[in-house]
């Protein structure tokens, strides 16, 4: 699903966020990305979601070379990814249902289909009864779950989560991680950046640890046969 071959990312100004990172996340796998803040987790996720391009090395998403994607094709590739942000990035000017339905509207689904899928996604995160609420009236954990519903509503092949439990207490964090595990169980590839080491240990999934832009621990050794 995701393959990095000696990826280096240097920002203008010379700061090197990633140095020679190689990893391989097979399709349907779930893994964690850990490291201190500033270790390069976010940069790695940004390269996968086509926000940044590698300075050197090759990043491949589902057999698409992310180094050479044209601006025009970026939206279509992003539609294969569900992104979950630490601060959930909900739009507060519209109700929960409209927030979750956005990816479907963008992709031009028909209305009955949008209704069906949106409600299914909300049901999955246990918030179907809140579909008409405004996001501002929800708790932090609920808002994050709406963010997850929005990320999965269009059934992406890959879920990326950047510190999804960063603002939540341990109980809520465990709930959120459990949702990711459930998606993994139905075949979605999941990559979660987190520094909640206790929780990660509990879930017993492969872990990639970054330190100052370099991989210091890697359960996802590059496997060129894939």
């Amino acid at each position: 699903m995701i393959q990095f071959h000696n990826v280096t990312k240097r920002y203008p100004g010379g700061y090197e966020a990633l140095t020679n990172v190689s990893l391989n996340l097979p399709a349907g796998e779930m893994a964690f990305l850990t490291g201190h803040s500033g270790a390069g987790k976010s940069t790695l996720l940004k390269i996968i979601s086509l926000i940044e391009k590698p300075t050197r090395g090759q990043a491949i998403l589902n057999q698409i070379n992310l180094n050479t994607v044209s601006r025009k094709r970026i939206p279509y590739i992003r539609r294969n990814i569900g992104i979950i942000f630490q601060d959930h990035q909900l739009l507060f000017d519209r109700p929960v249902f409209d927030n979750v339905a956005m990816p479907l509207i963008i992709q031009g689904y028909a209305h009955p289909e949008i209704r069906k899928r949106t409600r299914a996604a909300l049901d999955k995160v246990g918030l179907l009864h809140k579909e008409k609420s405004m996001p501002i009236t929800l708790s932090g954990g609920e808002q994050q779950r709406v963010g997850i519903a929005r990320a999965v509503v269009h059934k992406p092949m890959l879920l990326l989560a950047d510190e999804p439990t960063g603002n939540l207490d341990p109980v809520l964090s465990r709930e959120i991680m459990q949702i990711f595990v459930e998606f993994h169980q139905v075949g979605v590839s999941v990559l979660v950046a987190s520094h909640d080491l206790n929780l990660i240990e509990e879930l017993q999934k492969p872990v990639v640890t970054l330190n100052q832009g370099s991989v210091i621990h890697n359960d996802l050794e590059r496997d060129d046969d894939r």
Partner: protein
Amino acid sequence: MTDNIHQYRPGAFKQLTAWLLHHFQSLVFSLGKIYRSPSSTLMTVAVIGITLTLPGGFYLFLKNIENISGDFRSTTQISLYLKLDTTLDQAHRLEQQLSANPDVADTLLITRSQALAEFKKHSGFGESIEQLADNPLPHTLIVQPRQNMETLNIKTLQSKLQSLPLVDIAKLDTEWLERLYTLLDMAKRAVIIISLLFSFAVLLIIGNTIRLDIQNRYQEIIVTKLIGATDAFIRRPFLYGGVWYGLFGGILSWLLVELSALVLSGPFARLNLLYQAEFKLMTFTLSDFMILIAASTLLGLAGSWLAVARHLNEIEPK
């Protein structure tokens, strides 16, 4: 390397319906946004409406002047002062002869004695004229050229009439009319310049409004880009926003011009009475209205396009 992107693209028909659907959604959404923030929208629409009122009003003003002066043109006359030794008989015969000319619509003979009587009555020189041994005034034949005759043809007719043996002077009093037309021509160009300048102003107003709109929705743009919205998808609601501003601004300016015409119609009627004329106050015709609305709507689209092209690409997720 196989390209796995295609399999996630919907079919052509589905894409088309989705495209149409989103156009409709953007249209409704941008209208809904206007409805939800009526005061700021009203301000923008008012500025556009008032800005467009000036060229629109000028245009209407010119149209009325042209209408009135066109009427003057049809009253152009050629006065033939016959030679003093012309007899009344000869004058009558000449009148008959001229009224048979297809270029002549009407003729009127003012005999020497009639002319003298008129002059005595109106000039105030009555007594001194009575001292004169002879009537100094000639027979006068007023020739009315046929309707809608070109100025050049009227001039040809004048010189033809001048060459008649009985005619002393054939006088065509059109100089003031030509001056008026030159002035009108200048005014027309002024209207074009004003229209261009004010259209540009409208373009900037709408562009700036849409720019602020884009800034206000920065967060939404970022999020929609991240979940796979194309540039066209993000652009659409803003473009429709500009179209609405232009459309409503155009309608407002039309209302303002019509209202101004209504205010002017009272004095205009009095003027008609004073000149014993029956001029109609011209307002916008349907085609004028359509042109105004189409132009303002296009300006709205162009203005928002400028803003969108400049500012939307700057917004990228970081």
